[in-house]
């Protein structure tokens, strides 16, 4: 809004103290336009791009999350089944023995062998009574007779049908966990507990077996937040896992990033009946390559679109500013021309007033001189008579010069009567050329006529047109040296206008002279030349205006002068 108000309130000044000069102003306007166009085009593009980007990424994440969730569920079921199957087998097999047989070493050996046939990862097997004493034991250690009643796992397992302990080192000094099956009421003579030990390494091996996706890091974390199995990204057993899983149920965590900035999606689930949390961690999306490729293409397309938009905006705004600049220049030219016309009109009025006021006393002087001459002529001879006649002739000549000036001045300003007719401008030009061609011939000046004979007739005054062309041709002939050329060309110009261009190969007109060339008494000719009154072009200007026309001059020093005169086909002439 601020930008729009800036554009609306944009002003320029030619004044030295003005806020901006023209050049700065147009550059500033262009920057404003570009900024506005940028906001209108590129900003929405960026917003749409970002929305699309995040939407697409969200799809990838959802897809990846769904897949990871399925993988997690599958791994959980597999893991739970794996442990539960061991426990169930232990239970079923144990139920096949009597209470006494379970404490019998040879029977337990047989049971252990049967169990190991199916579950080779079971390290040892022991039978405990309700006091926590391991009365029978099969395995690589000498653990028979050990009382486990003070062990945490025993206390936890004591009253449960089945139990899976956390990983601990225990008496053997090797990380392992125990699975137990109990029977009979706790505290009675018929109570027993069958305990099997499994090395923790088996958990890592099993995870490796069920994890078929290389992009997934699968591991177990204890309820205390430390690692229970080896992880590719989170270190060894016992290290603290960096992700908070205190609320872990069936959970999928998104939005994390690794050190390389790749998305990290973590799924965790608590294993039923076990003190572990199964964690699946995926780095990158399922279709990561497609995503990366898409990202690159997307960014390339958006950048290309933004650059193209910027380029087009720049070109369009430059063209717009250029149009505004040209319109301003045209307005300035019209304003200058209007001022020039008004100036000439006022000068014309002033000149007419002065001429009229001078005319009356000049008429008196003329008559007085005439009377003196008459008296001298009508008188008899007297001394210095001839000198008297010469003096009065000189005075009469000076009066005539003044009279010529005042009459031209009056001609410049007055509303001359016109005789309207439809005429061919080429005919008028040919007539005028016939007036001056002898002079041109005598001075070795070439007169070139390039007349378009298909021009329509115009409504105008033949006499005035003759005067216009004669004045300009005379000026051109005066300007051109020997062997020079004066060219008169006519052509049609839209709308419904006939143009005449008179060019010469003279020395040209300096810009400071062009500005004043149609003003009365402005002349560059030498003072003693007969035609150098400085009224010719100002009269011409007045007549052209009267005939609804327009006259202008183009010239540069050394390149001759070009007078361009336009007349409309129709003109509401005052007769």
């Amino acid at each position, binding site marked *: 809004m601020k930008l729009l108000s800036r554009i609306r309130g944009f002003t320029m000044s030619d004044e030295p103290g003005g806020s901006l000069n023209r050049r700065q102003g147009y550059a500033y306007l262009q920057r404003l336009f570009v900024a506005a166009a940028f906001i209108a085009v590129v900003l929405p593009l960026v917003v749409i791009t970002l929305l699309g980007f995040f939407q697409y990424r969200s799809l990838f994440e959802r897809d990846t999350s769904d897949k990871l969730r399925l993988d997690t569920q599958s791994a959980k079921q597999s893991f739970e089944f794996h442990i539960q199957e061991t426990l169930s087998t232990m239970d079923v097999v144990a139920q096949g023995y009597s209470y006494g047989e379970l404490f019998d070493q040879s029977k337990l050996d047989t049971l252990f062998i049967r169990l190991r046939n199916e579950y080779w990862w079971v390290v040892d097997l022991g039978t405990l009574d309700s006091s926590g004493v391991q009365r029978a034991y099969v395995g690589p250690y000498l653990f028979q007779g050990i009382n486990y009643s003070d062990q945490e796992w025993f206390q936890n397992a004591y009253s449960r049908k089945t139990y899976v302990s956390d990983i601990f080192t225990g008496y053997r000094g090797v990380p392992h966990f125990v699975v137990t099956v109990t029977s009979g009421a706790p505290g009675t003579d018929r109570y027993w507990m069958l305990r099997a030990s499994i090395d923790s390494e088996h958990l890592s091996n099993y995870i490796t077996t069920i994890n078929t996706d290389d992009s997934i890091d699968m591991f177990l974390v204890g309820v205390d937040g430390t690692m229970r199995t080896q992880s590719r990204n989170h270190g060894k057993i016992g290290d603290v896992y960096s992700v908070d899983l205190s609320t872990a149920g069936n959970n999928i965590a998104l939005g994390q990033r690794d050190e390389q900035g790749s998305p990290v999606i973590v799924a965790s689930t608590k294993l039923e009946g076990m003190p572990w949390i199964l964690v699946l961690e995926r780095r990158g999306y399922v279709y990561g390559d497609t995503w990366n490729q898409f990202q690159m293409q997307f960014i390339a397309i958006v950048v290309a679109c933004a650059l193209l938009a910027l380029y087009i905006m720049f070109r369009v705004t430059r063209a717009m500013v250029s149009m505004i600049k040209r319109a301003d220049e045209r307005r300035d030219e019209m304003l200058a021309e209007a001022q020039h016309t008004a100036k000439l009109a006022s000068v014309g009025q002033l000149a007419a007033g002065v001429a009229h006021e001078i005319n*009356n006393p000049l*008429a008196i002087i003329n*008559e007085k001189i*005439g*009377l003196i001459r008459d008296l001298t002529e009508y008188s008899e001879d007297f001394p210095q008579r001839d000198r008297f006649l010469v003096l009065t002739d000189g005075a009469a000549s000076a009066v005539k010069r003044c009279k010529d000036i005042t009459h031209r001045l009056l001609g410049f*300003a007055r509303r001359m009567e016109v005789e309207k007719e439809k005429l061919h401008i080429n005919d008028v030009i040919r007539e005028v050329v016939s007036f001056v061609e002898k002079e041109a011939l005598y001075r070795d000046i070439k007169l070139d006529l390039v007349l378009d004979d298909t021009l329509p007739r115009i409504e105008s005054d033949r006499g005035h047109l003759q005067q216009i062309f004669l004045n300009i041709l005379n000026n051109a002939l005066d300007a051109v040296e020997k062997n020079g050329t004066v060219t008169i060309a006519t052509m049609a110009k839209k709308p419904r206008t006939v143009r005449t261009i008179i060019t010469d190969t003279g020395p040209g007109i300096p810009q400071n002279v062009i500005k004043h060339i149609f003003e009365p008494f402005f002349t560059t000719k030498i003072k003693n030349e007969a035609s150098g009154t400085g009224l010719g072009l100002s009269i011409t200007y007045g007549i052209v205006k009267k005939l609804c026309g327009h006259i202008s001059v183009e010239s540069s020093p050394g390149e001759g002068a070009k007078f361009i005169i336009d007349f409309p086909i129709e003109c509401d002439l005052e007769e």
Partner: protein
Amino acid sequence: MSAIEILLVDDEIEFAETLAERLRLRSFKVTVVSRADEALTVLDAGLRPDVVLLDIKMPGLNGLDALGEIKLRDPDAEAIFLTGHSVASSSIEGMKRGAFDYLMKPIDIAELISKIEQAAEKRKEKSGGADGQSV
């Protein structure tokens, strides 16, 4: 042939008197007045000049209106406007109202005399025609 009689009406007395003297030197009979109403008075008194030389811009009755009054008193009167005025349309208007011709000041005496003689001749022809009709 009797001298051509001229009534010169111009508020520029210096001009009018000097011009009158020059014309008199050339045997014209000239009466000078400085205002249009004076000219009408002279005409009312019975003067019938061959040619009236009239300035256009004068105090009181201007030359154009004065011509109408003169024509009322003397329909055959021939008038030549002498004008220093810039508006040529006034002179054209004068021609439309029956003036013989007009000259721009400062005037050329030879040209003026030529016009006066032509105007006088015209009046003479008209007066002769009128006499003929009245007979």
